[in-house]
């Protein structure tokens, strides 16, 4: 923090819930003396230290890498997943984005397929189950060709990388009024469908992943575009278009 910089105060309304069965409620807290250069999670660290000092239970919140790549953190802040900044995860949100004295409402992701575990922590294992249904190339260790034996046009590799950058945070589901996981599924399906290595299994993969997504209670896609607007990694709805094409191909021309 630069010398002489002013500090900020906030009123926080935070969702507290003992466990997945308990009833949750909003609890109001005040924090003061916050630097504008403080990240949102650092601000919550400060709150939690204060709560511990008072021998109260701190707010449980998922976080780990704190550099926007692990996908662990994800809070619904003033009605937006990852808060009021574009292209960031919650850990990359800074208090300079807020007004001094502002009231900030902090909630967990709300989706049937992501039940609340405690406070702001949700269970996103449904994403793992979708990947387990086919979000990979079925290659075992060893016995593969030389890396340069498969030529991949630069543009294709870049396009694949654009969608492969999904961090599985679940903001797309939280942003969607239907709690649909289409963008998440589309990112993985597109990444592997774009690459020649992923083609042999493309039909099987899309069929199985979509079926698993439906089974787990995610909603349908109605093309509102909220997912794209809130994706911290800028994954576009064109991926959903590709997912739909891949899905139709697998239905019209089954293996």
């Amino acid at each position, binding site marked *: 923090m630069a010398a002489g910089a002013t500090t900020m105060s906030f009123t926080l309304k935070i969702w507290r819930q003992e466990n997945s069965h308990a009833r949750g409620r909003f609890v109001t807290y005040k924090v003061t003396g916050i630097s504008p250069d403080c990240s949102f999670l650092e601000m919550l660290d400060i709150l939690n230290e204060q709560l511990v*000092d008072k021998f109260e239970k701190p707010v449980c919140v998922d976080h780990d*890498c704190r550099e926007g790549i692990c996908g662990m953190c994800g809070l619904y802040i003033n009605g937006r997943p990852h808060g009021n900044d574009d292209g960031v995860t919650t850990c990359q949100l800074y208090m300079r984005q807020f007004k001094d004295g502002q009231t900030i409402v902090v909630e967990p992701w709300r989706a049937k397929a992501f039940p609340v575990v405690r406070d702001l922590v949700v269970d996103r294992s449904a994403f793992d189950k979708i990947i*387990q249904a086919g979000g990979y190339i079925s290659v075992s*260790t060893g016995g593969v060709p030389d890396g*340069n034996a498969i030529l991949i046009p630069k543009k294709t590799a870049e396009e694949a990388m654009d969608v492969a950058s999904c961090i599985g945070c679940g903001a797309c589901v939280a942003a969607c009024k239907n709690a649909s996981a289409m963008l998440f599924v589309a990112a993985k399906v597109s990444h592997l469908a774009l690459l020649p*290595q992923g083609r042999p299994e493309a039909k099987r993969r899309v069929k199985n992943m979509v079926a698993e997504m439906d089974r787990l209670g995610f909603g349908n896609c109605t093309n509102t575009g909220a997912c794209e607007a809130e994706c911290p990694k800028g994954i576009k709805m064109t991926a959903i278009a590709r997912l739909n094409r891949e899905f139709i191909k697998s239905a019209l021309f089954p293996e």
Partner: protein
Amino acid sequence: MMQLNARIPEGRVPDKWSNYKAGQRLVSPSNKRKLEIIVVGTGLAGASAAASLGEQGYRVKVFCFQDSPRRAHSIAAQGGINAAKNYSNEGDSIHRLFSDTLKGGDYRSREANVYRLAEVSNCIIDQCVAQGVPFAREYSGLLDTRSFGGAQVSRTFYARGQTGQQLLLAAYGALSRQIKEGTVTLYPRTEMMDLVLIDGKARGIITRNLITGQLEKHTAHAVVLATGGYGNVYYLSTNAMGSNGSALMQAYRKGALVANPCFVQIHPTCIPVHGDYQGKLTLMSESLRNDGRVWVPRSKEMAEQLRQGTIKPSAVKEEDRDYFLERRYPAYGNLVPRDIASRAAKERCDAGYGVGHGGQAVYLDFSDSLRRLGKEVLMERYGNLFQMYRKIVNEDPLETPMMISPGIHYTMGGLWVDYELMTTIPGLYAIGEVNFSDHGANRLGASALMQGLADGYFILPYTIQNYLAGEVTAGVIADTLPEFEKALKSVQDRILRFEEKKGKHPVTFFHRELGKIMWDKAGMSRNAKGLKNALDEIKNLKESFYREVTVPGQAGEMNPELQKALQLEDFFELAELIVTDALTREESCGSHFREEYQKEDGEARRDDEHYMHVACWKYEGEAQPPSLIKEPLTFEYIKVKERDYKN
């Protein structure tokens, strides 16, 4: 005294791995189904090992503390992964990668292990391509590479600034496939609490469910630790918040040795600390030094003006800039290894030329590359890193040079393992950053990913068979054995000491203090007096921690404060090991710089006569000092040289 046998195979160094594979025992497919393996950790090493072992038909249980295996901290590795492909036709080879790695580690790693690492490096790239990793490509469709510190060739494969993410997601995909097939069972949000030995062999672990707080017993015929490094001893590091050293310490207390704990890498290019409330450092990839030039002003007056903000760095004329890495190390320039770059930056900052808050930072400037390559190329190479920087610092690195300063990043030290990656406890393996074997006193950039995947895909799945071949008749291990009950009880007792403990300060207060002691006295520059003081200060801090720590909440619920308290206990003990090791190693080598042992020009003075060994520490009981066991290092294939990046 205990004698260490690294079990290096016979033959010339380049033949050792082939010779090993020709002679090792194997386990038949029908027997593999009878054998259970526990893998703790799902980073590159853990995920790749668990997937590969599952593919072979073992019954694997894999554990991670995160909610999903995809979130392990390997995900945050940015720059790339090395391999000796020589696609760039610059004269690279297995031998060159091997010798660069040994030299980079200042000849404090094991020759045979490093050669094997270089040897399997090429298979890793092939494997990852087959899995669908979208590596950067040339217009021809061929794989692209870039350069990293300590190398004069371009051998680093990359996927933008998210290479770790892409490699981990590929390994996670392979792991997910095995979970689906039923060969691997996944236990997320689960922390290892203790290792269980039966008749001296690793036979299982005790875990804590981080949601319910429930303790569980898990049995196996072998236990693989892939739990990462212990950089968070220093509180502020580039490690994830949850990265900890507890599994390593559990193994240590059960008899495994901790090797070279004082070898801790300080990365030169972190974003400077911005406040006391900060809990984590953010790394800016070393790859940026391909196109960024490091400098400070030539005059102290100008440095003061820059610190005050009365002049802008872009206004500093070329002749007023000191590109100190290019000046001191002309042969490698900005791409000297991390330890060298960090120390050179510290030297300038200590001398009063540093910039930023407290004068602790230096500039990393892209203006030359911007003119040479244009914005589009730079954004393609480093776009996500620039975005990260902009969000944190609120400045555009293409307009104002980045400010960077050194920070704790990686631990070369770790559990001692033999050539098979087995610790001194039979059936207990350590892979990836948690072992010590390949990086000596300093790791080269883009080699952590290489080692993690080498261990997990191509080394452990071979070597573990040599042990498991002797376990096929062991039958199912019962978790009702008294050893399991005893371990469970001791974990319970340990936890109860912290349950609803009312004191004066939260856990983080003590962790932050520990970090300060370690950074000041066992960080970039160390001396005997400071290290001795550190030992006393750690002891005092530990005592006040037990007296004054506050931990609200119960053991039978999600309780991150409780978990942090348990981890900090282990960090205290690790800190003592680091300091003891640093005090004992009376030489400067790699990341370990003892002020008493330097040359007139400030370069490290290594002492091969007395310290060409791995320092291994053995637990001797609570409140007892550990004992030192040395594994001498011999170099038969390579000539040990002075580490010189000037010529």
